[in-house]
């Protein structure tokens, strides 16, 4: 789901930059660990931008995107290209916010929520808690950013790289089937995956051995020094109108995004505190 927010945001986000220069403006999209080919993502993002340009009556080609699925490449692009707006994972935002003056601008709302929880699913009765899972295999499709997992999802209680034997997979369903067959001890799922578990035939055999605190959904961030408050507000309004626009509405419905909302003050404070605490 995250990548869809990323794409939606990438499209509308460009509106905020459009008036700043004649040359095409770059929107940096970082999707660390995502199984996304950069060339294909670039094509998709370009397509998104063209639609946004048409809907927003901007000249075609006003915007361009830069995409990477590698965290190190994201760091490099942020440093070299200094984009005014970017879409990153929460982990990358927290890591890079101070260095690049990043501030969250807009969040998506899904099923009434602008936050999500991660859960570790196990077979019923197999493991009571995190301590019982020490040294056990943990699968899932959301295991790429281990530092984010350590500091935010597990709030510093454990280091997942040491606590578990990690078995990342491109497909969560594959991990869950392996769990049901006893080939894995546990699977980490995000909110979207957890909400869909009920449709799986073996869901009744599973339970959560760990549930994270609510973690804010990440959206678009801006370089506070490279953008004015007016530009960020304009961008926010554009995003808020996204799911009311006839074309944008279809996309929002297709991917279950109810709306885009301005980030409320304090939304990311807890995450920032946890991140800082984790560095000590």
């Amino acid at each position, binding site marked *: *789901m*995250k*990548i*869809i927010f990323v*794409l939606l945001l990438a499209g509308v986000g460009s509106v905020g930059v459009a008036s700043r220069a004649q040359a095409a403006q770059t929107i940096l999209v970082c999707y660390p660990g*995502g*199984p*996304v*080919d950069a060339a*294909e*993502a670039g*094509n*998709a*993002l*370009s*397509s*998104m931008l*063209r*639609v946004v340009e048409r809907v927003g009556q901007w000249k075609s080609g006003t915007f361009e995107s830069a995409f990477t699925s590698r965290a190190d490449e994201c760091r490099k692009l942020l440093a070299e290209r200094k984009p005014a707006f970017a879409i990153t994972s929460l982990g990358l935002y927290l890591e890079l916010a101070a260095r690049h003056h990043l501030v969250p601008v807009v969040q998506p709302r899904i099923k009434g929520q602008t936050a999500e929880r991660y859960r570790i699913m196990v077979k019923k009765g197999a493991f009571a808690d995190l301590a019982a899972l020490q040294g056990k295999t943990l699968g899932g499709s959301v295991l790429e950013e281990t530092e984010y997992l350590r500091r935010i999802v597990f709030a510093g209680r454990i280091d997942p790289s040491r606590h578990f034997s990690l078995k990342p997979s*491109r*497909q*969560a*369903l*594959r991990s869950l*089937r392996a769990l049901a067959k006893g080939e894995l001890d546990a699977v980490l799922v995000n909110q*979207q*995956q957890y*909400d*869909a578990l009920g*449709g799986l035939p073996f869901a009744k055999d599973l339970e959560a051995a760990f549930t994270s605190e609510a973690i804010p959904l990440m959206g678009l961030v801006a370089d506070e020094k490279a953008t004015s408050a007016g530009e960020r507000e304009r961008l926010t309004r554009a995003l808020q109108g996204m799911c009311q626009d006839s*074309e944008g509405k*279809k*996309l929002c419905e*297709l*991917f279950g995004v109810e709306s885009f909302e301005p980030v409320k003050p304090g939304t990311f404070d807890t995450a920032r505190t946890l991140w800082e605490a984790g560095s000590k």
Partner: protein
Amino acid sequence: MTRRLLVFLGAALACGCGHLATDLVPLDLSGCPTEVGLAQDAFDCGSDSALLSCALGALRQDDRPQLRRTALGSKLCKLLAEREADPSRRERLAAEGVRLAEEALALGAEDEGAVNYFLGANLGMAVRDHAMLAFQNLSRLHETLKKAHEKAPDVDQGGPGRILAMLYLKAPPWPKGIGDVDRALELLEGLVERHPGHPLNHLFYAQALWQAEEDGARAAVDRELGEAGRLIESGRFGSCSEPWRKELGAFAAGLPRTESEKREGE
């Protein structure tokens, strides 16, 4: 969210279209014989494109129900579309194949596996560059191919299962879509056993193995690609070979070098 959804989404937005193409591709019928045999089994990958065009041209003029309730028309469209390099012509040929299959179904061929297979194959080609259309037709495509696989699993050397497997491989995965690499693997494992003579069964199996296991399945991936390549170059698949050769080449080029390849390169 996966690469496939990105591609679907990007294509959807690029297209903005909502319907299959309805205009017919003009056919060059200048060299056609006065009588064209319209037996379904007479056409396959080895058929000359000119002959296929002649047959489709003749079929367009032939309204006999006993002919139009067969899979012939949609098969001709599939064969022509698959070898068509121009995307617009390919799409229109495939869309015509969908209409001809729908006509056959309406004339009483609902349970004929071959008609459902060619409907699914043409529908897949008609929507594949238009993701919103693909999303809109995903459920229909899924049901059509499942029915074809159930009724005629062996047509086109496992064609229904082959396309169904690729649908599972390319569609958005759980929890947002029907994409399911395990199902794809299961189907393709069966197909390479049952129909080892079709190169796409091996190529698609290699793609599924790579998506599921990556480096853990590299040896098996290379083995299947080798077999697919050998079959493609065997000369048995006529004009079908060229697009398959390209697909194999593109997939192989995207694989990382093996350790032995790295050593050879040093």
